[in-house]
């Protein structure tokens, strides 16, 4: 029985005047129904582009999938016709974007925007769709939904807009909900509410969620599985516990180490990862993380590592991730975990 969503060694490149930007350069993961996948990584790591590629929302010039596949319920999304693909979008796979202010059309009423996928995919009449939209707004926690549905986006507050976007994404009861940094543009208190809302919805509808974020706290709370991305590549993937407590990739180590901690008494220095992420046009030879890796060896400069399964559904793209001695060097290991 195939997984709900399978991303198989996806490579998505942008062909620009200045060179080929390898925005996604080898990403693989699976997603099961009802589960949450947290996709983490710094800006520029390819998280959003991966999500947009799944939805086929990347404009064909200049972007192009050069290899790999994305399969939904066993069927390849990338080789589907446009028409079939559109039947999935907003219907079986829905997306929530980062900035709700710019992502909502300023000249359409909120209710109309939420009703739109219903009219498009389920052939609701205008009245049916409107009523359903009001109902959805109520479900996402907007008070006086019937009146608020008649408002325009600029009349909503930031948190309310994001709720409206969630309502819009949920309208057709999708199997997968992709959330691209849904809380980044919001206040901390609102963030918590939105995340709570999403968990509630997941419990109710059994949809799978892909949560893209650079905030570890968000992932720790919600994710069943974690995918760590760097420079367009998947560097580590596995069940959340595995990745947090037994990470095997030096980048994950560095990233976890660099987070400020509240539970340590001494006033220590922050330890960021030295160096800068590489240019996606001029990737270094061998391992992309090699130049910044404190544990790099000669082979890291020569050959590019691929995702290797090290058991328990845990994958990593490092030459030495299977080597226990190597892994023991992890700072986390030394500290005995959390």
């Amino acid at each position, binding site marked *: 029985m195939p997984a709900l969503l399978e991303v198989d060694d996806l490579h998505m490149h942008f062909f620009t005047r200045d060179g080929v930007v390898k925005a996604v350069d080898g990403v693989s993961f699976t997603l099961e129904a009802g589960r949450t996948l947290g996709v983490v990584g710094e800006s520029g790591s390819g998280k959003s582009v991966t999500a947009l590629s799944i*939805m086929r*929302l990347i404009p064909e010039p200049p972007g192009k999938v050069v290899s790999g596949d994305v399969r939904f319920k066993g069927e390849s999304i990338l080789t589907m016709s*446009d028409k079939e693909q*559109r*039947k*999935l*979008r*907003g*219907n079986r796979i*829905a*997306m929530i*974007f980062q*900035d709700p202010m*710019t*992502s*909502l*059309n*300023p*000249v*359409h009423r909120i209710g109309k925007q939420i009703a*739109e*996928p219903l009219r*498009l*995919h389920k052939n609701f009449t205008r009245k049916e769709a409107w009523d359903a939209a009001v109902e959805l707004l109520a479900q996402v926690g907007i008070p006086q939904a019937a009146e608020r549905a008649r*408002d*325009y986006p*600029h*009349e*909503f*507050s930031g948190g*309310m807009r994001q709720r409206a*976007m969630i309502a*819009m994404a949920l309208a057709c009861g999708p199997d997968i909900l992709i959330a691209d940094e849904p809380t980044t543009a919001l206040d901390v208190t609102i963030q918590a509410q939105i995340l709570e809302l999403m968990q509630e919805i997941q419990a109710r509808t059994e949809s799978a969620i892909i949560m893209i974020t650079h905030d570890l706290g968000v992932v720790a709370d919600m994710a069943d599985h974690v995918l760590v991305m760097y420079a367009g590549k998947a560097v580590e993937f596995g069940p959340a516990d595995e990745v947090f407590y037994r990470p095997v990739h030096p980048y994950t180590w560095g990233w976890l180490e660099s987070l400020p901690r509240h539970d340590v008494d001494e006033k220590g220095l922050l330890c960021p990862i030295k160096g800068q992420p590489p240019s996606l046009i001029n990737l270094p030879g061998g391992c992309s993380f090699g130049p910044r890796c404190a544990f790099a060896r000669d082979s890291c400069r020569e050959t590019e590592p691929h995702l290797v399964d090290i058991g328990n559904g845990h994958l990593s793209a490092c030459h030495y991730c299977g080597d226990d001695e190597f892994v023991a060097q992890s700072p986390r290991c030394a500290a005995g975990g959390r």
Partner: protein
Amino acid sequence: MLTYIGRRVLQMVPVFIGVTIILFILRAPGVIPGDPVRMIAGERAIPQATYDQIVKENGLDKPIYVQYYRYMSHLVQGDLGKSYQLKRPVASILLEKFPNTLKLALMAVIIETILGLAAGILSAVKQYSFWDMLVTLSTSILVSIPVFWLGMGLQILFGIKFKQWGLPYLPISGMESANFPSWVHYILPAFTLASVSTAYAARITRSQLLEVMGQDYMRTAAAKGLTSRQVIWKHGLKNALIPVVTFLGLDLGAMVGGTILTETVFNWPGVGLQIFNAISTRDWPVVMGGVIIIVFLVMLINLVVDISYAFLDPRIRYGRVAE
């Protein structure tokens, strides 16, 4: 909403007054070359008594602010003075010619709207294609053409050459003639008048639509499963066209102002031609009267456009509420 309208009207008042002041300064005695008395009386020598009488009648001996007051009160009553040349009230001369100008301008705006919008949308949707290049280049050219030269060129091509070559040809002068139904006379002048504005309209439509196409909400619409055509028509156009509609409205004002060149070339009996003739014969009251009428008309149109903008953009109509 009502406060918005109220504010706009209020803002217009000082501008209104400023305009009248400038126009008054321009026609005040001493500013316009030539003795105003001479202009009224003609070039012949006149006895001192007549000179004094003219001065008194026209209040030319009063201080300047009194003259301004006189001028304004005449203006408000619709009295624009008398034409030196034709010895008739300026207001009635211009009122006669006015409808002709208006008809021509309206025709031109219709042409401009249809062609300009179509070209702009086409070139934005098919960006970088052959059509886009074509539209961009031809709008650049149109914007650089002197309107009157274009008019003359059209006259030569469609009026003279076509006739020489035995093809059906178009009238090139005036509003009526024996050989053609009257509407045909509108064709060449209207296209000429519309030409430059069409180019601007196309450019604005194109750039607005392109800007809208890059917006996040267009991506959201695509993520809902709409086809790219649906995304543009349902989500993009309304946003893009708001500023374009505003431009079209403002352009009507500019066009009314720009008819002087087109009417001159095509001998179209409108306000513009009247002003041009008045310049040649130094008939200043007509010149100034014509300018005043046109300016006020333009200001009125601008006000209407401003107000209608509020209706079109819900962000202005409903203001900010929750935050």
